[in-house]
């Protein structure tokens, strides 16, 4: 199943770069029942990686208690226009997605 859209913006904010990333992900807790009354299996993002110009600067581990369609904000030290920011995720079912943007 192809992962849903991901959107990110990275903007200079004085001494740091503000990064906001939106992800499409069900973040299922394994407790929800679907329309037919069946339990929807656990399906959530476990790992997040934030890279600046190819170098990893943040590694996150998350649980199913992060909201559906997660929105994360990070702050990077300094930063310059055109810096390449990449955010990728990996979930408990082995699915991944990533997005890249240049600092504006």
């Amino acid at each position, binding site marked *: 199943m192809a992962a849903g*859209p991901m959107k990110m913006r990275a903007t200079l904010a004085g001494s740091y770069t503000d990064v906001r990333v939106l992800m499409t992900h069900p973040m299922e807790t394994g407790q929800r029942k679907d329309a037919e009354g069946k339990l929807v299996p656990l399906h959530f993002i476990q790992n997040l990686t934030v890279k600046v110009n190819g170098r990893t600067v943040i590694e996150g581990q998350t649980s199913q208690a992060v909201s*559906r369609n997660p929105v994360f*904000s990070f702050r990077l030290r300094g930063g310059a226009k055109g810096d390449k920011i990449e955010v990728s995720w990996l979930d408990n079912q082995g699915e991944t997605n990533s997005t890249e943007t240049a600092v504006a």
Partner: protein
Amino acid sequence: MIRFAILAASLLPLSLAAQDTKKEIERYQQMIGEGSPAELWEMEGEALWKKPQGPKNVSLEKCDLGLGAGKVAGAYAQLPRWFKDTDKVQDLESRLLTCMTALQGRSLKDATARLFGSTDRPSEMEYLVAYVVGQSRGHKMAVPVRHPKEKISYELGKKIFFYRAGNWDFSCASCHGEADKRIRMQDLPVLSAPAGAQKAYTSWPAYRVSTSQLKTMQWRLNDCYRQMRFPEPDFASEVTIALTHYIAVTANGAPYRGPGTKR
């Protein structure tokens, strides 16, 4: 006198608490709006808008939303309005149905297959609405009441707003016609006056965090009717369009704020 002072003093913390509650809720609303999944619905909607579909295998890119074929920017801020090709006043959802059937050649059955989405079954209509309304972000509300049919629609909407019926003898005004009302923790805006209408109308459609879905104005009205214990209105019925028209016109002058994010 002292007794009165003590009574007044004891009531003060209650009113302060109510003020704090309101402020904290506004803070919650502001924080969830900063970076909203609604933007993802807009992205999906744009892709669907440009996707050739139906027997005629065309996209919706030539759809006329009131400002001319294919012009999307600012269109939502001027809907509902009268359309020459259908000789009807139409809101966004009914206009999208017109374009899906006329331009793409799809059957009404196909176009209305899933109007209100759920977690497991998303709605094409909701994605398209998100995209179109997002393109009116910042545009001033300027819904017309010029054409004779627009005048009839506006007046009908106003009449319905105050019309009591259904099992509970409710009208829209029962909840939205008087200041300082609330249901549990939610303040109820007065929709029959500009201030309330502007605040409410310019933040719908909205991504509702409680359902993780983007819900449209048609859905909002449908759900209000459900809550009033009325029979379910037909999707994009004359009544729902008239009501939308009335509230939208009352909101005129305020900038449309694009898809909102709500609880």
